[in-house]
């Protein structure tokens, strides 16, 4: 029988959840958040927006289909992951399957976590933990396995700086149109969606002065943390809004565009992290099921003249997208690129591409 190693999760309010370790035998702290998606752990764990967070999956059976090969790349992009590394600081599940079964898997989940030095715990009542987080809001916490550590708030760090690219990279050099991709921690599938549409993508650091490039439009990516910490990006976007070039943002990109337009953002109690969020397109009868991962939101009441709500969350009425009356600048809070999650809104990429002149 396999040896079991004790591990515990300690929250900043002092509560302790005990289970067993299945990742790296190391202690780490982070902001504890939960995700209610039922599939897609390789995608979620490599999503840079989770930077610095300890992720709790509410779906109890994790690891079933293993983890695909890390060596497979297309266009220089990892085929099966959303970035080159695991970004969470830790993983909490109820029931872990070390024995996995899938034609595309090359190792189990624990092995992969160990490769990236990430601790993980199974055997936790993740429902109890989730309810805790729901009632108290997201909390800081730490996974303690080998030795006790101090809890460090990841939000005090420059999270976007950590996940953003350091030097510009161009994809699909022969693409018909060119966009600037402000990389605040972009997910690979966003790049894939643009390449699929034959767009040349210049991926630049989030705070770079991109005006020097020749481009047809700007894309602002998703990313971790508080949007207000990306001051340079916001200032650059303010200038970009004076241009005539279309701008499209996703997730953090939605918040950054809002801030650049003069609106405000705030932190949600426990955010939206799931694959089943209904979003209504304002003025239509259409409601889309979307994938989400965000802890901050745009304050609807602060939208400036010329801007309006584009999408709203059917469950709690929070902002899910904004659009400028010119029709050239728009962004969404959810993830049309999915991975993980439903692909119902990938038409938004088409919409942006159509605006490129």
């Amino acid at each position, binding site marked *: *029988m396999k040896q079991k190693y004790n591990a515990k999760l300690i929250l900043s309010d*002092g*509560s*302790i*959840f*005990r289970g067993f370790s299945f990742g790296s035998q190391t202690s780490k702290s982070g902001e504890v958040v939960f995700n*209610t998606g*039922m*599939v*897609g752990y*390789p995608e979620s764990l490599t999503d840079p927006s989770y930077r610095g967070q300890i992720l709790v999956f*509410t*779906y*109890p*059976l994790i690891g*079933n*289909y293993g983890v*695909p090969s890390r060596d497979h790349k297309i266009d220089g992009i990892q085929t099966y992951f959303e970035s080159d590394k695991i970004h969470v600081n830790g993983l909490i599940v*109820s*029931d872990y*399957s070390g024995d996995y*079964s899938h*034609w*595309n898997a090359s190792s189990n989940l624990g092995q992969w976590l160990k490769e990236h030095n990430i601790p993980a715990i199974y055997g936790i*009542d993740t*429902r*109890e933990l*989730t*309810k*805790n987080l*729901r009632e108290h*809001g997201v*909390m*800081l916490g730490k996974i303690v396995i080998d030795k006790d550590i101090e809890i460090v708030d990841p939000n005090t760090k420059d999270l976007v700086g950590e996940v953003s690219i350091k030097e510009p990279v161009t994809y699909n050099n022969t693409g018909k149109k060119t966009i600037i991709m402000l990389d605040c921690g972009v997910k690979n599938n966003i790049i894939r969606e643009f390449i699929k549409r034959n767009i040349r993508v210049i991926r630049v650091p989030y705070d770079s002065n991109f005006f020097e490039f020749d481009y047809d439009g700007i894309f602002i990516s998703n990313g971790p943390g508080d949007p207000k910490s990306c001051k340079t990006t916001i200032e650059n976007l303010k200038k970009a809004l004076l241009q005539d070039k279309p701008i499209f943002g996703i997730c953090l990109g939605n918040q950054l565009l809002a801030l650049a337009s003069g609106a405000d953002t*705030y932190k949600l*109690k*426990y955010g939206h992290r*799931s*694959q*089943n969020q*209904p979003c*209504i397109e*304002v003025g239509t*009868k*259409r*409601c889309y099921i979307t994938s989400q991962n965000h802890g901050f939101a745009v*304050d*609807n*009441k602060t939208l400036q003249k010329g801007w309006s709500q584009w999408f*709203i969350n*059917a*469950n*709690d*009425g*929070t*902002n899910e997208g904004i659009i400028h009356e010119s029709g050239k600048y728009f962004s969404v809070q959810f993830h049309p690129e999915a991975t*993980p*999650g*439903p692909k*119902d809104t990938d038409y938004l990429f088409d919409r942006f591409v159509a605006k490129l002149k």
Partner: protein
Amino acid sequence: MTKTDEQRNHENSITVGSDEIPKKAVRVHHGVKKAIVLGSGALKIGEAGEFDYSGSQAIKALKEENINTILVNPNIATIQTSEHIADKIYFLPVNPYFVEKIIEKEKPDAILLAFGGQTALNCGLALHDSGVLKKYDVRVLGTQVETIRTTEDRDLFVKSLSKINAKTPLSKAVETVEEACKAANIIGYPVMMRSAFSLGGMGSGVVQNEDELKDLASKAFSKVGQILVEEYLGGWKEIEYEVVRDASDNCITVCNMENFDPMGIHTGESIVVAPSQTLSNSEYHKLRSIATKVIRHLGIVGECNIQYALSPNSEDYRIIEVNARLSRSSALASKATGYPLAFIAAKLGLGYSLYELENSITKKTKCCFEPSLDYIVVKVPRWDLQKFRQVKKQIGSEMKSVGEVMAIGRKFEETIQKALRMLQIGYNGLVCNDGIDFKDLSEELKNPTDKRILAVVRALRNGKTIDEIHEMTGIDRWFMYKIQNVLDIEKKLKKGNIDTDLLLEAKQLGYSDKQIGLLTGKSETHVRESRKKHNIFPFVKQIDTLGAEYPAQTNYLYMTYNGTEHDIELSGVQTNISRNAKLSNESNTADTGSNTKSNIKSNTESVIVLGSGAYMIGSSVEFDWCCVNSVLTANKLGYKTILINYNPETVSTDYDTCDRLYFEELSLERVMDIYELEQPKGLIVSMGGQVPNNLAMPLHTAGFKILGTCPTSIDNAENRHRFSALLDELEIDQPEWEELTSVKDAIKFAKNIQYPVLIRPSYVLSGAAMNVVFDDVALEKYIKKASDVSPEHPVLISKFIENCKEIEMDAVACKGELKVWAITEHIENAGVHSGDATVVLPAQKLYVETIRKVKECTKKIARNLNISGPFNIQFLAKDNHIKVIELNLRASRSFPFCSKVMKINFIDIATKVILGQETEKINGTCLDLDYVGVKAPQFSFSRLKGVDPVLGVEMASTGEVACFGNSVEEAFLKSLISTGFTLPKKNILVSISGDNNRYKILGAVKKLVKKGYKIYATSSTGKFLNENGVDADILHKIHEKKEPNVLTFLLEKKLDMVISMPDDTKPQTINDTSYIRRLAIDFNIPLINNTQLTRLFADAVQIHDLDSLEIKSWDEYHQDD
């Protein structure tokens, strides 16, 4: 962590900007004033109780919109045909003829076709095709007929999907046997043969070669004009999605499901898990995207199901089918997620948008979302194959299961073990199932039977590797890793040295106390006590559709050992210490231990009603009706109602039926757990049939309060010796009987009381392995079979009395005094199981003296056992002499029938009695009704290949219908037609074994001739008829290979009906007459297989033809009163 006021104002749960959310539209969406809902009729294999659930929900949705709702459904045992649900109910056949008549009379403006299974769908298509819907200007709500047709006609379906590049299996629709062979040669054997308009895969099968194809194809063409020859996808994963779409084109998938058994085994025969377990994000969402694309393309509005085959080695897929209606899978998905699919589908049919409808579980969020599960659901089918002689035990592409169970847990191991116990067929889980043996394990793995999962367990235990088993079965390795985990713990438990960690781990993997006891040589009670000492308790969790993301008021519950906190507040205390704290000695104040506070108002007592468990032969929707009605009454009396059941095909497991629904095992262990947590006034065990009834005594012994009749009385009725002694004491006659343990003694006893004798094992419902034998040889053979059923119990032999009437008494007593009663009469003589009998109320042909004696006897028994609650007594009557054959101190199968015919709710009265409420005595009105109700059995022989369709002491019917009439003949004909019987036009074949039987039907055949029917007969029957003045043309038997031959007549559809029965006095063998009966079933020709039925049929057609059967609703019969 500090928050600014600004932040506080923007917490998730508040409704920032909610003004912008489109409000529930005030305008009426639909303009519908009166709508007809078509039910599914009797329960049959492939079309069971799930349609009671879906129809009831649809009616509820319509009523909420103030739509006058008319229900057509002859299934009298359903909840949907109860009072105060639909505005009007027609207990009439769901077929185009009757529904047209009802439309003509009621003039509805809309019709719902999607809630009554394939029966309703087919009827709706026929009404559309014949122009009836257009003629009477009746709108189809929801998915339109053209779309339904595209999904039903395979050729149209494949063509339509190819337009959007959605992949379907290579296939060819053919209309002749020759075409079928040609297509198969192109695709390559093995091929899959499917027939259009299939339900539960009827007429489908894997075909290995041309000979098999010719045989199967010609059978299929007798029922349909078209069949499909397809690419065979054995070994591929089978995946389903439940899809919902509104008229504004919003489209969601509510649930996906993965079959444990790969393609090749019908999804109704498969173990199914929800959500899928072995699919990656890419696969899950690829199939999801295709699902929404297909459903949009087809134009479905409401709910549908899409089935896929998914390659186990790539992302290649095929779409197998789309069901444009509520289905068994949608009922399962609905229960698995808490998303009320049928209710929502009905609302969408009226034109609502998904985001306008509220999520009734959270009451905060909208219906336009996809449920997130934080648990796993496992469905296991329940078969009753041992009930059918000559049936193949192999499971495959045709459905044979009669019911299913659904278990919920947080580990696969835990959940599958729960589910296997829920089947109530003696399994203790994955392990500890002694007595189940496999002669040829490899064969069992390659050609699975109903015991396949235990074969996998056995193979693992025997040391076969997971890869080997995967090769043989196609079952995904992941499932087997999990099964292996259970086996590993079994090994550890057997070794002994059981510490807290091991005990907890075993419980977390779904081991019952009994299992642990069996492995450690301890009693179940001992394990329970020791477990409690170790502070190991289960926790109650909610099903809330959103993985705890939003607070939910849901009362939909399950229990698990994979948790450390109760989701709800409970009045009872199992433990005060959270397991988190317990695992180490560290103090831990913030740990959220179990709650000990009570949210139950001190003046509100609760009561637990035990449900009926899986549908099986002998226990079906009628017990669900009893449970639901009991809950409703208890609610009305101010009790907080708690229901325990695990059958996803029921209304009782709708979470809005009771105050708290535990989707849990009906086992001693789990009922005690729930009792201890809930601290109710007591338990009601008499509503759910035999499953809860069997728990009465153990629960009582363990000190739990059983409400109603005292469990010792129940035991006195169940125990043959005590019951017999009681009858002797009360001077009530009974057939002679004895319990015997050796063949020698048995033969001696049988000789003594004289053949024929009835043999059966003790303590069983619906007469498993019962039989009547006429000589020593047969006796010896059957004792062996009976003993196999239950080795601990000896065999029981009793005198079988021939030519005897069977009478039933259904009644409610309070403290031994009769409160309400109904006497029903069987058309068939004793010897046909009461569940297979045609039952008449009020009794038409009983002597007044017999009735008086039955009442007297009932009163004596009620008084003596001090009965408080429902009960049922079965009598034999011959020449004004009565004998008691059985007493059940619980509600019986016929309670809904009696209640609805008399319009007196027996369960309401019984529940009041049980809860100590004063009730008026109701005077016997069952004899002076101005109309007659006839209940007829529904058989599913057409699905059970090879079974000889005869009636006997073993129950074989899967459902029932009941209709009303001004005479027994009228009600009988309506009932018969409701079971799918077509009145013959001209030619009737008579083939009877035994002169005794021939004499009995002679008069009836003469009447049929007089009515103008043309009689054909097989040789000896023909000779007999001719000698007795009936002009009958002789048809040669099949083996005679001479024309005119029965087979030719059957093949050429020259026969409109077959009357055929075996000689009851001879041992049953396969002979030419049984072959004729079988062919009648296979060729869809009406069959009558009993002498009394033949006589009633002949009488009925003398008086009535189709036109003279009155179209009257239930209330119209009572108005005439």
